[in-house]
């Protein structure tokens, strides 16, 4: 059953059209991998799904319901509700430098709890304690149980990205997006992050990546983007072993690290 459906998504920055009508759908619990050269619009697509940039037009359906319609105006409050449905892990981690790993992971949920339990102090304390436990569990799950009180600057790039993944998971998004999660990392640090992402199988995820081997092994479905369009899509084996489009072929040739 389709879980996420994107229809005719377009985005323009001043005169440049970065997304020229993107359509795809994704089933629950599946991993969609998006490949393509830099500047092809992959990152903008993820930013549009997280409403960091607003699509100019197009529709996003989630769980069978219309979540976003580009022809409508939404208030900041409405957009915030929509943002909670998606999570985003950034290329440059973007951890908050003034907070420890644990606080990075629990901050957003803490704020949400405080907002929703204005009157009920006992409930608030309970929920905050529970959130703390959950944040600890998540950090243990990403292999950083020893680093709860470390600041981002005290962690390696790979560890920082794992904290960022735990932080994104803490918000319990319906769809978790990764924007080139390993491209700021050395190869040996990339591996620990890629391994972690593989271990999240079962969640609905969209991964933009340059790691072709990872894309092939982990992806359930692959989109190849160029110039703001989806040029080719299909199962990983089809795309990587037998690409039909000339542009896909050319891209994969240049990619080099396939097979």
């Amino acid at each position, binding site marked *: 059953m389709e879980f996420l459906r994107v229809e005719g998504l377009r985005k323009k920055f001043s005169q440049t059209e970065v997304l020229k009508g993107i359509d795809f759908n994704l089933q629950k619990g599946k991993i969609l991998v998006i490949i393509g050269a830099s500047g092809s619009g992959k990152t903008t697509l993820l930013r549009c799904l997280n409403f960091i940039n607003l699509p100019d037009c197009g529709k996003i359906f989630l769980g069978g319901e219309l979540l976003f319609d580009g022809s409508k105006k939404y208030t900041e409050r409405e957009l*915030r509700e929509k*943002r909670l449905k998606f999570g985003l892990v950034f290329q440059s981690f*973007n951890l908050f430098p003034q907070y420890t790993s644990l606080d990075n992971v629990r901050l957003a949920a803490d704020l949400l709890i405080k907002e929703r339990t204005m009157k009920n102090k006992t409930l608030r304390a309970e929920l905050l304690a529970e959130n703390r436990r959950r944040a600890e569990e998540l950090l243990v799950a990403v292999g950083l149980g020893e680093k709860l009180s470390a600041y981002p600057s005290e962690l390696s790039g790979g560890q920082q990205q794992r904290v960022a993944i735990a932080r994104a998971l803490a918000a319990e998004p319906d769809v978790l997006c990764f924007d080139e999660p390993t491209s700021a990392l050395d190869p040996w640090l990339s591996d620990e992050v890629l391994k972690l992402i593989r271990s999240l199988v079962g969640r609905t995820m969209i991964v933009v990546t340059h790691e072709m081997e990872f894309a092939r092994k982990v992806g359930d479905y692959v989109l190849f983007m160029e110039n703001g369009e989806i040029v080719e899509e299909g199962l990983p084996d089809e795309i990587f072993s037998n690409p039909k489009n000339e542009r896909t072929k050319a891209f994969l040739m240049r990619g080099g690290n396939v097979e």
Partner: protein
Amino acid sequence: MNVFIEVTLDLLQGFGTTVYIFAVTLALSLPLGLIIAFGAMSSFKPLRAVIKAIVWVVRGTPLMLQIIAIFYGPYLLFGISGFDRVPSVIVAFVVNYACYFSEIFRGGIEGVPAGQREAAQALGMTRTQAFTHVILLQVVKRVVPPMSNEIITLVKDTSLARIISVAEIIMSAQEYARAGLIWPIFYTGVFYLVFVGALTLLFNFIEKKLEYIKI
């Protein structure tokens, strides 16, 4: 010895005015500076233009001239009496320093990488939450060094108040000079040095406290 104590007490009284101008200016110009900074970054173009013009005028003319303009201006232009002496000085200082502070704040806010706000947003924080819980402390960390510079300048700029006869410490010392006693004018330097020394210690302490944030 008696003269020394008398002069010290007298200068202390003048220094009280100095510290008063300093403290009130600081307390009012910091928040005003933040408001001006937000205005300068507003997406509403006319507001940005107005703020830019104000900052240009305030930073482009001597503070001494601004004090004179605020004290004598209302009478000369409209024949009405404006503020008293001390309030005039304070208004001039607050507006002047708020403009300088606003530029420091703007630099500090714009210096925080966009990714910080975006990450906060993606996690479902509201704009206000993102600012107060994620951005603000990073701004503080960035602005403390330039801010301490500006605040130390403010301590010494208070001596401009004597241009409209506000009896701050230098003016108190000048009374002695007029009567033939020169050394009190140099003695005022000690008061400034002690005060600035204490502020420097305070700023060092704050910087140390924020050292754990690596940006």
